[in-house]
């Protein structure tokens, strides 16, 4: 295979195939890794992100679970305590209300409660985000996990980052909540605006480091997950209007790479945090405050946040569009910020 056909194959590859490749490479490396979740085995995942794994690694290591999230999430805790490295899939992050107990009172706290005696290498893989599926199937909720100490919380955008961060999550000795975005899971490599290139072998990326995905000098825009794509699109529009936007992909909510954002915002003087999760008591306020705490409260001329305005996601797409930050909404806000300088 030439490099060119390889790249072409990669570009034609749906994001879920990249994710399952990352998992497969790790499962090959480490026989203690196993996956449990609904429809991840025979069906290969509702988005295909575990396709082929059961055939390859067998039913014990890629287990189709009944709809018993409390049961199999706690099973993940027990498996980790028994020396395994489970990946537990909660199909959609919205369902976490049935099993948060095992996630936050056990997985996230056991390492601390045990005084460091018990490690907890569990990956909670789940999907969030809006694709028209209404209030109970559209949330992001990374702000919720981030509020509860003990989780690392990852939400990548590019195929490249999905592969590297999934590998890092599976190798981490800490519990990691890995939140994919449904809209991204429906994309192929070529549909991504940044970093669709994915190396073949296994590699990891450090969890907790943001990436500047577009350089700019007028406004700093920090976001993550699918919104990075929208932000890049908005930044392109704004560039045509003479406004230069620096776009930062946070990649994880915990750890939160404040330094990278602060460095950029210090340069541009303006910060916009965009979040597909709910506005209040979440990422946008925390990141804004941390940047201000780092730079001083009068260091920036503008600090704004754009997020879902504290309502459940409505069913009608016309309504969803009115609350979820998309390219137009982001561009509008950037425009207003640029004018209001």
């Amino acid at each position, binding site marked *: 295979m030439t490099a060119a056909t390889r790249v072409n194959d990669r570009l034609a590859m749906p994001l879920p195939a990249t994710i399952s490749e990352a998992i497969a490479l790790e499962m090959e490396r480490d026989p203690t890794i196993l996956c449990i979740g*609904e429809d991840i085995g025979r069906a290969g995942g*509702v988005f295909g992100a575990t396709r082929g794994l059961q055939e390859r690694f067998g039913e014990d290591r890629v287990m189709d679970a*009944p709809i018993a999230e409390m049961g199999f999430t706690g099973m993940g805790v027990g498996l980790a305590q028994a020396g395994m490295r489970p990946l537990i899939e909660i199909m959609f992050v919205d369902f976490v209300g*049935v099993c948060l107990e095992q996630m936050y009172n056990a997985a996230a706290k056991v390492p601390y409660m045990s005084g460091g005696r018990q490690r907890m290498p569990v990956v909670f893989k789940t999907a969030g985000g809006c694709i028209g*599926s*209404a209030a109970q*199937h559209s949330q992001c909720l990374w702000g919720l996990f981030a509020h509860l100490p003990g989780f690392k919380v990852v939400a990548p955008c590019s195929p490249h980052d999905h592969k590297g961060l999934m590998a890092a999550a599976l190798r981490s000795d800490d519990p990691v909540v890995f939140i994919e975005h449904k809209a991204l899971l429906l994309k192929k490599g070529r549909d991504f605006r940044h970093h669709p290139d994915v190396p073949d072998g296994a590699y990891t990326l450090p969890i907790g480091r943001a990436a500047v995905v577009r350089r700019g000098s007028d406004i700093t825009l920090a976001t993550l997950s699918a919104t990075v794509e929208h932000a890049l699109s908005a930044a392109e529009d704004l560039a045509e209007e003479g406004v230069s936007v620096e776009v930062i992909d946070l990649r994880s909510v915990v750890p939160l790479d404040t330094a990278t954002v602060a460095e950029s915002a210090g340069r541009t003087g303006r910060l916009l945090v965009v979040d597909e999760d709910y506005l209040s008591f979440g990422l946008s306020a925390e990141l804004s405050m941390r940047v201000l705490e780092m730079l001083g409260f009068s260091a920036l001329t503008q600090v704004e946040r754009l997020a879902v305005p504290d309502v459940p996601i409505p*069913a009608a797409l016309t309504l969803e569009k009115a609350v979820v930050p998309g390219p137009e909404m982001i561009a509008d806000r950037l425009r207003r910020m640029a004018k209001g300088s």
Partner: protein
Amino acid sequence: MVAMRAFDEACLEALRRKAIHGELHVGIGQEAIGAGMAEALEPEDAVVSTHRNHYHALAKGVDRRALLAEICERAAGLCQGRGGHMHPFDPSTNFSATGIVGASLPVALGYAHAFGMRGMDAVAVGITGDGGSHTGGFHEALVMAGARKLPMVVLVENNALAISVQFDDVSPTKTVAERAAAYSALGLHVDGTDVDAVADRFAEAMDHARSAGGPVIIEATCHRFRGHFEGDPEGYRSKEERQRLRETYDPITLYRQRLTTAGLFEDGALDAIQAEEKAAMKVLLSEVLDMPMPDPAGVLDYLFVEEVPA
């Protein structure tokens, strides 16, 4: 049954016309359950349904125009376009649903307790699939209903699949009904493709609960003819298998055969009924598709009833 089938076919058409976004779960193949239960439901009874809820809603008497409009995300929908197909709420018929598997039963338990307290002889019907029978919510609701002998009927639609996961692969028991003893509940089993059998058995379940006999688990075996949701690649079963199910277990075909064999109806008359329902739904759909979408200006409405104090 025929009306329910026609309704779901209209939904499929609406999906093709891009009037529905997000997941859509239809009940095609399972309508005998809806039609059978409809006969025993009283207006004051409550039904709490699942992600696959259209035929239950129709069985409970939810207005089909408002329901279809909701599914098509219209301003005049049952929930003004906020709920969508998985979350229809109709206080006027005591019908509601949830998109979270297993979550329907605790809610039904609440209705059951309210009915008990008020001395009403109404029954709360909580619906779940086979997949939902493994959830903690199933257990907790039945523990409470069993201990308190509440008027609750748990209808388990066992189509042997939870998305791709086969019931036999993940259930510790051959049936769900046999678990009734763990809750001191009555366990019933019925062929969910036979509308007459469902009507009889469901009536028996309702009578039991209505007459203070305590909760009932009624398990109706059935088959889902389409994907779990529209667009489901169904990698977990073959086309042939699906075709076989359709040919063997279609509740409408089976019922037609019974009616014609018994000489009660002729094929022509039955065809006419089906055609009529189809036509009516076609008209309704086109009316619904002409309805306006919700006004984005009101997108923040309905979060709270009471204003935040100024």
